[in-house]
């Protein structure tokens, strides 16, 4: 499995504050990868490192086998739609297409024009007067029409209304299907990603909590409920991600590659949202725990 983004112990510090610490991950090619995590998990920092907008303070990062933004060739292989989809307010839609054509040797003018026509954007309109959704679509057009191998999107739908969200993601999926791109998109809302991603990475406080193909994650995670019981007594192959107890009942999210055979449990299908929230909670709990230990020592 070749990696589109490969990081080893990568970290980024702003002054005395670390936005990302010791992050090691490998994002495989040929997928639409969702990068999920709470705010301040380091998602944007990671994506900015991957596009060379930032240089890492520690560790190494490789994108498509090269150093991010190392030169024109590397830049041509990666498309980036940054947070809030910046466009030049004073330039028209047509100007943006010219910009793309002038600055990208691999520019696909037909693709760009047909996308703009389909999206019903008027060429003469100034980008500053476009709606949030239209700006995002214009920025996506620029990122797609340069014909990258990897498309990186940072919170692409965060500022869009639900209808625009759906349209944007649908449109993105069409572009992906046509061009066979690898895609990495970040969000703190799993509901945005559920429909489009086939690979998921949960990033909490710079750490990868879980990563894998969505189908596989759903198949190996089970929501178990049964009579109250200590999670420590589960078979060795079952890893407890989250546990909640009432006086009589215990509900567990467990990860296991084997089938759950114990008849005491009622097993239920897990949703992607349950899964992501469980991993985020687990990390938060562990963080509190660590904190308490530090306070004691």
């Amino acid at each position, binding site marked *: 499995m070749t990696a589109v983004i490969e990081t080893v112990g990568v970290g980024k510090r702003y002054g005395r504050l670390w936005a990302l610490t010791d992050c090691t991950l490998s994002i495989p090619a040929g997928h639409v990868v969702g990068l999920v995590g709470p705010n301040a998990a380091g998602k944007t920092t990671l994506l900015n490192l991957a596009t060379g907008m930032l240089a890492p303070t520690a560790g190494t990062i490789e994108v498509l086998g090269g150093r991010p933004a190392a030169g024109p060739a590397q830049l041509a292989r*990666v498309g980036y739609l940054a947070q809030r989809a910046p466009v030049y307010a004073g330039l028209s839609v047509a100007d943006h297409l010219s910009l793309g054509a002038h600055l990208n040797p691999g520019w696909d003018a037909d693709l760009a024009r047909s996308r703009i026509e389909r999206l019903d954007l008027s060429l003469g309109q100034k980008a500053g007067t476009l709606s949030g959704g239209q700006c995002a679509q214009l*920025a996506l057009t620029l990122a797609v029409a340069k014909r990258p191998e990897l498309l990186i999107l940072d919170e692409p739908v965060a500022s869009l209304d639900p209808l625009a969200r759906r349209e944007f993601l649908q449109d993105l999926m069409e572009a992906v299907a046509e061009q066979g791109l690898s895609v990495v998109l970040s969000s703190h809302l799993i509901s945005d990603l559920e429909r489009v991603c086939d690979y998921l990475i949960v990033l909490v406080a710079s750490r990868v909590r879980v990563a894998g193909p969505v189908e596989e994650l759903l198949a190996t995670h089970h929501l178990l409920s049964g009579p109250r019981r200590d999670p420590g007594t589960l078979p060795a192959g079952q890893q407890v991600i989250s546990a909640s107890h009432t006086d009589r009942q215990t509900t567990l999210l467990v990860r296991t590659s084997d089938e759950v055979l114990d008849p005491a449990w009622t097993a239920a299908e897990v949703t992607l949202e349950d899964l992501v929230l469980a991993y985020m909670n687990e990390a938060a709990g562990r963080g509190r725990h660590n904190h308490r230990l530090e306070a004691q020592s």
Partner: protein
Amino acid sequence: MIWLTWRQSRIKAASAAVVLAAFAVLLAVTGPLLASMYAVSTLGTCQGDINACGAYADDFLQQLDASHGGGLILGAGTYWLLYLLGFVSILVAPVVIGIFWGAPLIAGEFEAGTHYLAWNQSITRTRWLAVKLTLTGLAALAVTEALSLMEAWWATPISLAVARGACCSPLAMNQFSPLLFATRGITPLGYAAFAFALGVTAGVLVRRAVPAMALTLAIFAVFQVAMPLGVRPHLFPPDHTIAAFSSFDSLDVPIENNTFTAIPNGWGDQPEAWVLSTGAVNTSGTPVSAVPADCLQAIQAASGKASHPALLDCLTSHGFEIAVTYQPASRYWAFQWTETAIYIALALALAGYCFWRIRRRLS
């Protein structure tokens, strides 16, 4: 990238072109009138050297002053105003360029976040910056130097009058005077390059256009005051000489408590030199300020009036002369080149810092 730079700055380019055109029209209309005024003046028709025509040179300049007589078509004071307007335009152009072209050049992209768009096209940000800096910077130099050349052409009659011996009109400025030195020759190029680079650097550091503009204005103002007052006189070691009282066009000798100060005006020997300091000395070259006893009587005869010929004659009879510290006129272009080189070097250093910062450190 050239296309994008042009597309982003064409409104600024158009406004600069409008200002230049307005300036050019104003000077093109009034310049020939000024020239014809010169041609028919007593100075213009006077054939001969400074001794023969020097007095007419001041007459001509006084014609241009508001308080004296009418002009040909325009009121005479108009030329004086135009002359000043020219200076102000050339002095202000670099800082206006630094503020409105330099400061927002990169800071504007940071503010709008559009550098995320620009830096993710298939072009390195080094090239992006290089094209932006080069094109806009060259335009800044061209605009400022164009203003300077137009003004110098327009003011040819005034320069001629000064060269032919005018000394005492406010328009008769020495070529080293801060106003004239900073607006003629090649110094405007240095100022424009420095102000522009300063604006860009301030924008890269502050990342907000408006504070960067304020910072540009403040720092550039400090440089423009410090350079003529503190640095320029010391660029070359000055020459020293002793000159007779009579070699000056006029000499004021105010007296207080039996000590005098000699304040000479217009150095006839070297009218185009830059006089840095002067002081009275005796025959052995030692500075003097006490009025000799016999000269006090001469003052009483002259009822204490400064510069009275009797007093000057008396001081002269004691062998007093004026020690002059000065930069000879022949160093004018050495000063021009050195100062311009300093500013260009500063501009290049700032630009280099911008490249380093944008490539390495940028968040």
